[in-house]
């Protein structure tokens, strides 16, 4: 059955997990429409990564970051962006992302917003976390209809970075570059491995023992529901109003 809890929301669980990936004294970025990644990054700033520098695309808010989000691309091109988040309307088992068209490119069923810089960011950011709040076979397909940006590249291509992880409302998966595929790392409370398999249109490795994703601690929840919530409510008021944070 899907994730349920009275003690914390799915957004809080995922933000807490994301915060573990943020490294101190690095540049970390988020894109548009990313309240949960933003929450995770801000949580890390208040806990384990106080000297991390956050760049939020679409934001010039000094309370959020000392640098305008416009600088994100240049920081990435210099090789200095350590972590960024990407998601697509479709993603496949090789880490390919589709942000372009669903269906035939020349007569699409859906025309999507486009790459928005992900073509370069997926290559030049040291680590990319793939992120979706909707884990369904419609999103996680065997092969994307259009490769907006590929999960891996051959050795003739300059590519210092790429995907390392996938986080969804059901689970966490590691991306293994050598295998060009995913391995299940953990399932969220109440979610079974079978449910992940049913909702994923591509094959991925499943270890014999799949633990539960770590629950957010009381300290993490307190920070998320106070300092982080305050900052998020400026950038994403709708997310806060619709109950993104518990408590």
């Amino acid at each position, binding site marked *: 059955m899907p994730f349920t809890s009275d003690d914390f929301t799915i957004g809080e669980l995922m933000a807490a997990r994301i915060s573990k990936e943020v490294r101190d004294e690095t540049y970390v970025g988020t894109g548009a429409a990313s309240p949960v990644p933003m929450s995770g990054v801000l949580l890390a700033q208040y806990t384990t990564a106080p000297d991390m520098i956050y760049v939020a695309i679409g934001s010039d808010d000094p309370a959020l970051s000392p640098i305008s989000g416009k600088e994100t691309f240049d920081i990435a091109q210099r090789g200095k962006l350590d972590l960024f988040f990407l998601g697509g309307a479709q993603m496949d088992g090789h880490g390919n992302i589709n942000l372009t068209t669903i269906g035939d*490119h020349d007569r699409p069923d859906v025309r999507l917003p486009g790459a928005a810089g992900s*073509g*370069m960011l997926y290559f030049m950011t040291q680590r990319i976390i793939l992120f979706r709040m909707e884990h369904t076979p419609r999103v996680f397909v065997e092969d994307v209809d259009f490769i907006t940006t590929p999960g*891996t*590249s*051959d050795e*003739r291509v*300059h590519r210092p970075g790429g995907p390392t992880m996938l986080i969804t409302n059901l689970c966490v998966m590691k991306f293994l570059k050598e295998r060009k595929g995913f391995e299940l790392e953990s399932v969220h409370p109440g979610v079974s491995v079978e449910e992940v398999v049913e909702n994923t249109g591509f094959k991925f490795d499943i270890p014999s023992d799949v633990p539960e994703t770590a629950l957010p601690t009381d300290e993490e929840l307190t920070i998320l529901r106070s300092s982080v919530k305050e900052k998020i409510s400026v950038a994403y008021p709708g997310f806060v109003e619709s109950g993104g944070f518990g408590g």
Partner: protein
Amino acid sequence: MPFIPSRGVIGADFLDLHPDWKIIEDPYSPGEDIVLVPATKPDFALIHAYKADKTGNVLAPGYDDRMVAQASDKVIVTVEEIVDYDLAEDPRGGYVIPWPFVNTVVLSPNAAHPGAMEPVYDVDQNHLGEYIAAAKSPEAYKEYLNKYVIGHTEAEYQEMVLAVSR
């Protein structure tokens, strides 16, 4: 610039759509490939901007408006207003397209409608909704064109759309 190199892109389906983008070996990193993207050279540019002055300098929302003007052979700019002062001396509020890159200026307030011209006016969501519904069939689209465009002047169009609240 005739072309520029770009990171990324190799391995994406974009290359199939753009046979004019070339892959070459990076001369500074032997064994590595890189993509070259040729310059776009428009014959015409149609730009909507904030202001123009009497010399033809234009104050536009973005730096890319200036880039488009510089790249294009003939540049036509519609503006919200024409001002008496020299925009090159007082470029506050936008980016200046210098007069040598502008061929024609047309005073045309609200010309971005139903699109936005931030911060002057926002998107007209209602009208866009009407347009999107009309775009679903050739018959409906013809109706839309007859209602708003064909046989109507700009002034009549503006009267029609401003009469409806955003």
